[in-house]
């Protein structure tokens, strides 16, 4: 196989895993679920973008960001600003005291579109901003933190603080951001009604395809020398530094990639759900996203997607039946996973699933072979997880 293609697919095992996931989200879900449920899965998949980014930053880069909601929110708000402007044309808003500006601005006695909003008349600008705005903020945070070599825990706390500050800012600047309600009542994208079932189906597929694209990019990074450097840094950061590498630049890079993925996820969220609000930016959603990655397995890109899906199915089920219990359950789940299954579902699969599969094949003389060329697959099961038949 072409080496680049091989890198992207992550070897034979990686290709099979990815094909299964693609089949599940591109074929099984659309066939099996009704429009409402499918839209819900589409929403979960937008969180999976963040979880995949967290596998890169946290699993590989060793940097635990507890503020990924920031980037998800920024991407989502960029998209929402564009859609809101389109929904606020002078014709439709003629009863306002200032027609042509978003309704919440009018309610806040704003008489002119703020400068910040102007460029969001352009779809191309918006699509670029969805990625670039989160990346720029990640770059600033990354440079400020990693060049100064702040500790891991300190970094996590600072990302939380930024998530909190951003939430407070969004809520406070009601006239500019729609405040606590967020930006709602989004209707069309270049005249195409995003609320129709058909549009939702198409957006679901776009979102799923983008997610697979992000997984491929992440695989490429992990399989490259940069991916190996990240693992090496987690093991012996000093050795990497004194081998002539600028350790901070690699951390900044994966943090920015994670932010870009989160931004795309946020934009797809806005498109599919039809609004964006500060409740997706703050501390709680940011921590939830870490839980998705932890449950899936923080070293497994595909695991992150399954983690996001499963935890959200659970959340929907439980918060419909026992809403007050969910938060405790989620906390408990996180503790159990971190303490007993540090490699999450992917780790369980590596240690048990494969063995069961081999047994099912009923060929007792065939032992479970250790994964060939773990390097090439970019997925390195930790030694204690390796299957010993």
């Amino acid at each position, binding site marked *: 196989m072409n080496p680049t293609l091989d890198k992207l697919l992550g070897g034979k095992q990686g290709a099979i895993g990815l094909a299964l996931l693609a089949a599940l989200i591109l074929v099984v879900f659309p066939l099996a679920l009704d429009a409402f449920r499918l839209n819900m899965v589409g929403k979960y998949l937008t969180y999976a973008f963040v979880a995949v980014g967290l596998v890169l930053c946290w699993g590989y880069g060793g940097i635990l960001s507890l503020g990924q909601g920031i980037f998800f929110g920024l991407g989502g708000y960029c998209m929402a600003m564009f859609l809101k402007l389109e929904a606020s044309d002078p014709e439709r808003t003629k009863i306002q005291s200032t027609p042509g500006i978003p309704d919440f601005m009018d309610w806040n006695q704003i008489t002119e579109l703020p400068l910040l909003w102007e460029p969001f008349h352009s779809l191309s600008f918006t699509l670029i901003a969805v990625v670039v705005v989160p990346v720029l903020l990640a770059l600033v945070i990354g440079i400020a933190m990693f060049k100064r070599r702040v500790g891991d825990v300190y970094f996590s706390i600072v990302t939380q603080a930024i998530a909190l500050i951003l939430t407070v800012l969004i809520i406070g600047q009601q006239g500019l951001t729609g405040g606590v309600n967020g930006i709602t009542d989004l209707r069309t994208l270049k005249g195409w009604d995003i609320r129709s079932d058909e549009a939702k189906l198409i957006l679901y597929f776009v979102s799923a395809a983008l997610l697979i694209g992000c997984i491929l990019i992440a695989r490429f990074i992990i399989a490259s020398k*940069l991916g190996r450097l990240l693992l090496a840094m987690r093991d012996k950061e000093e050795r990497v530094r004194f081998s002539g590498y600028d350790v901070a630049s690699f951390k900044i890079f994966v943090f920015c990639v994670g932010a870009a993925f989160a931004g795309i996820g946020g934009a797809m969220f806005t498109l599919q759900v039809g609004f964006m609000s500060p409740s997706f930016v703050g501390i709680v959603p940011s921590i939830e996203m870490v839980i998705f990655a932890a449950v899936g397995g923080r070293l497994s890109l595909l695991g992150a997607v399954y983690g996001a899906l499963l935890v959200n199915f659970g959340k929907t089920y439980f918060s419909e039946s026992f809403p007050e219990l969910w938060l405790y359950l989620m906390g408990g789940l996180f503790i159990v996973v971190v303490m007993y299954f540090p490699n999450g579902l992917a780790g369980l699969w590596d240690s048990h699933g494969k063995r069961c599969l081999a047994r099912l094949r009923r060929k007792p003389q065939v032992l479970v072979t250790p994964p060939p060329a773990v390097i090439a697959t970019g997925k390195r099961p930790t030694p204690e997880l390796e299957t010993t038949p």
Partner: protein
Amino acid sequence: MNSPAGFQAAKPVLAIEGLTVSFDGFKAVNDLNLYVDRNEVHVVIGPNGAGKTTVLDLICGKTRATAGSIDFDGRELTKMREYDIVRAGVGRKFQNPSIYENLTVFENLEMSYPAGRKVFGALFFKRTQEVIERVEQVAQEIMLGDHLHRQAELLSHGQKQWLEIGMLLMQDPQLLMLDEPVAGMSVSERVATADLLNRISQGRSVLVIEHDMEFVKSIAHRVTVLHQGKVLAEGSMEAVQSNPKVIEVYLGH
């Protein structure tokens, strides 16, 4: 400087002058002067806590000097960033073998290959024939030619030390600094390491910290004895060994 060309050739590759570092008032290195010549194997010995490791930390930028200068081939290291110091040609082995345990010998060496050192370089780095040949050549040199695909954590302690030396050789540094390279090695491994050092010191300078006197004898061109952050004595191994001050503070017990 207007020194004549002939003098230039004899100029030391590394010139440490007036170097001082103070940890909360405690001067671990105190007004130190130390010179390493081209193609020289220079060994630093001294009792525990004399400041030997700290000197290496200062040279490679891990610790920042309170005062003094470190001139490496015309460049002032005290103000350079760690990775720039490495890229300028200074390689450093740590006191405890510091290798990537989860990677194979091949990958450990490849990691130190001086290409793909920046973000996008690393992203698109390709394992070319040139890289493979260089890795194999260095692996041969450090006696790990038959273990290329072994996971590094499965190597013996001595082999790990060699692997780390090999990782430095990948960068072909002008100055190689080794902190206790034979600590924990068997006698035969020590002999092999001495041969290795004598081979790899061709065409480069080596600064070694060691406690093992037999080993020091077999490699050193010049020995500096460090005591309480200062130079106590300097010269050939014989001269140093018969120096009464050195015997008193270090060799005597």
